[in-house]
């Protein structure tokens, strides 16, 4: 009880803050060492090359200093020794919802996963702690040769395919947290879409942290072969504990010539989770990659979905929103590297800060000297709801080719009393009025989401506006 009250004080009212009794088959001691890394790999019966890459990554992580940008004081608070790096709560990955242990199933039921799946999702992977507990894919996709597995199963069943692409988009030495993830990764999704196959409905993964002091290090690899298309959706939540958790994922996307990948995320981690994620894609000739990225929860998020436009005519889009409430810092943005001619990119970033929260847009667009006739469009809008809150923009444009056409717009706005009054005069309470304004501000993002997520996001923001009126 005392802990729950304390936790609530720390993070406020959090809708997904329930937690199940911890019930694990395997839990490693806290802390990280080469031995822990080797043990994780041995436990999973991994091929030697994977063990080696884990160990190399661990050594890089151990020697690499913390980033000297972003929110350094918050980063310094992370105690890597206090985190559990591997936890297994179910003996095997299940194929039917009924076979999943009751308490875990309850959790996912409360999150609404099975209904969602039945309604419109092609397949779902639910990750609870470190390993995927439930996984399914519609039969017709299997017939078309689409592979949708959790990453551990992917490595077991398709070792050559994984070996060919693993760490090619995000090398383990890319940054301290990609090194950490490569050393201790567990779970995540592995998807391969064969040539010319179009996955019509979105596929979904849901990640959840249940245990205290838990680290979650999923690793996702999506390969869309020539002329194929897929929309992948992930959502994340964590229960409310008074101690901090770490979520550090790596996502690698490969869009081969003419392929299309859209990757949509709405993370709603509770406000004591560090969310330090590396997401990067390579787009080959005439391929398109779109990141649709929503950051509502977490204590500190540092995440900059990236696209390397490697082939001529490739296109990238990053549409993101960030909401920073009390005690939160969303340091998010996008990175686009135009390496080939006739490549185009579009970045739309929207951030809201409230109750002393801090939102930062950090963006980088590079156009290589040899990349002719590229087009770049960057728009960042910030909405600040009160005088205690803060918004910063750190845009970087490095354009080395003079034929590039680039546009950049930035705006910072405040909610005016007259706007709120107008909506109140139409029968909406002050909180409802704020929610209408905030959801309107996010609308260019929300309309890109599958309906169910859009509705959920609108409800979440309405909840965030509750109890906020002094």
């Amino acid at each position, binding site marked *: 009880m005392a802990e729950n009250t304390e936790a609530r004080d720390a993070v406020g009212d959090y809708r997904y803050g329930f937690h199940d009794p911890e019930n694990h088959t395997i839990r490693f001691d806290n802390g990280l060492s080469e031995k822990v890394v080797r043990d994780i790999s041995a436990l999973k019966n991994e091929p030697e090359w994977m063990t080696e890459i884990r160990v190399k990554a661990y050594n890089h992580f151990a020697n690499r200093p913390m980033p000297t940008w972003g929110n350094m004081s918050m980063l310094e608070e992370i105690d890597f020794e206090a985190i559990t790096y591997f936890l297994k709560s179910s003996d095997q990955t299940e194929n039917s919802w009924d076979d999943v242990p009751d308490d875990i199933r309850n959790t996912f039921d409360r999150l609404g996963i099975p209904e969602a799946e039945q309604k419109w999702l092609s397949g779902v992977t639910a990750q609870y702690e470190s390993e995927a507990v439930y996984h399914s894919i519609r039969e017709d996709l299997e017939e078309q040769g689409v592979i949708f597995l959790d990453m551990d199963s992917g490595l077991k069943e398709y070792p050559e395919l994984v070996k060919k692409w693993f760490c090619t988009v995000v090398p383990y030495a890319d940054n301290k947290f990609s090194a950490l993830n490569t050393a201790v990764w567990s779970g995540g999704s592995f998807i391969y879409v064969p040539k010319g196959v179009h996955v019509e409905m979105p596929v979904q993964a849901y990640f959840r942290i249940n245990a205290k002091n838990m680290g979650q290090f999923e690793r996702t690899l999506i390969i869309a072969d020539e002329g194929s298309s897929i929309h992948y959706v992930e959502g994340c939540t964590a229960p409310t504990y008074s101690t901090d958790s770490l979520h550090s994922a790596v996502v690698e996307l490969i869009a081969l010539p003419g392929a299309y990948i859209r990757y949509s995320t709405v993370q709603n981690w509770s406000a004591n989770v560090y969310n330090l994620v590396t997401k990067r894609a390579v787009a080959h000739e005439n391929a398109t990659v779109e990141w649709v990225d929503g950051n509502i929860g977490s204590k500190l998020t540092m995440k900059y979905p990236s696209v390397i436009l490697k082939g001529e005519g490739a296109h990238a889009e990053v549409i993101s929103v960030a909401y920073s409430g009390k005690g939160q810092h969303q340091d998010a943005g996008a990175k686009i590297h135009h390496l080939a001619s006739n490549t185009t990119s579009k970045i739309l970033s929207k951030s809201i800060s409230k109750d002393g929260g801090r939102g930062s847009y950090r963006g980088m667009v590079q156009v290589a000297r040899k990349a002719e006739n590229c087009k770049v469009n960057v728009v960042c809008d910030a909405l600040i709801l009160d005088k205690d809150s803060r918004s910063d923009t750190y845009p970087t444009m490095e354009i080395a080719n003079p034929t590039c056409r680039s546009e950049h717009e930035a705006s910072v706005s405040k909610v*005016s*009393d*007259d*706007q709120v*009054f*107008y*909506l*109140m*005069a*139409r*029968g*909406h*309470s*002050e909180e*409802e009025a704020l929610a*209408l*304004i905030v*959801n*309107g*501000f*996010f*609308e*260019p993002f929300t309309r890109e989401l599958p309906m169910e997520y859009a509705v959920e996001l609108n409800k979440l923001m309405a909840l965030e506006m509750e109890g906020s009126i002094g």
Partner: protein
Amino acid sequence: MADQMILRIKNLHVSIEDTEILRGLDLEIKAGETHALMGRNGSGKSTLANVLMGHPAYEITDGTIEFLGEDLTEMEPWERARAGLFLSFQYPQAVPGLQVGNFLRKSVQAIRGENAPGARDFRAELNAAMEELDVDKQFLGRYVNDGFSGGEKKRFEILQLLLSKPTLSVLDETDSGLDIDALQTVSKGINAAATDETGCLIITHYQRILDHVKPSHVHIMIDGKFVKTGGADLAIQVEEKGYEWLNPDTN
């Protein structure tokens, strides 16, 4: 029911940032009545409209306002709207990203509460109101007042009036900036919203809207006070002679 008292204002004094704008106002509006309030810029007309709706910037320093027998000053703006008060804004606010159709549905649900129509009936009411006001269907997909022309904003206010079905509608310079066709359309909407159970307060500079919406009472305001009250002919006199002859300080 005709003759029922809708609004009763007694000795109303209102200040904004320590400057007194309304200086002792009395007004009664009964069911079935349409009152016109005329006066020059800065006379306090819009202040009255905003105070009735509960704008937080204004302070009531003296007097009372009763709406359907309740003390209006104790109510929040949204409670006033739900109780049956509607304000057509002089400067409607834009809300980017909020779609008109969605907003209208939510507002009607908020204002009319239990009596709000279901999805199908709402759609029928909406279609009828849009036809009445000559509003295109595409309008529903636009964002609230975002990039609207002056005329579109005013038409949208009247569309909201029709769907809100208020007991008292206050129209703050709804006629300003309208061409003659738009004025006729908007007037048609105002008349369509009026019944013998509702009241209307039209705030205007000009007599011309009163050719289309017939007032039962006309009040002239100068410096935060009513200086004269009369029938429809008073508006015509003002149109001919201006306001100066009514100014107690100069006559």
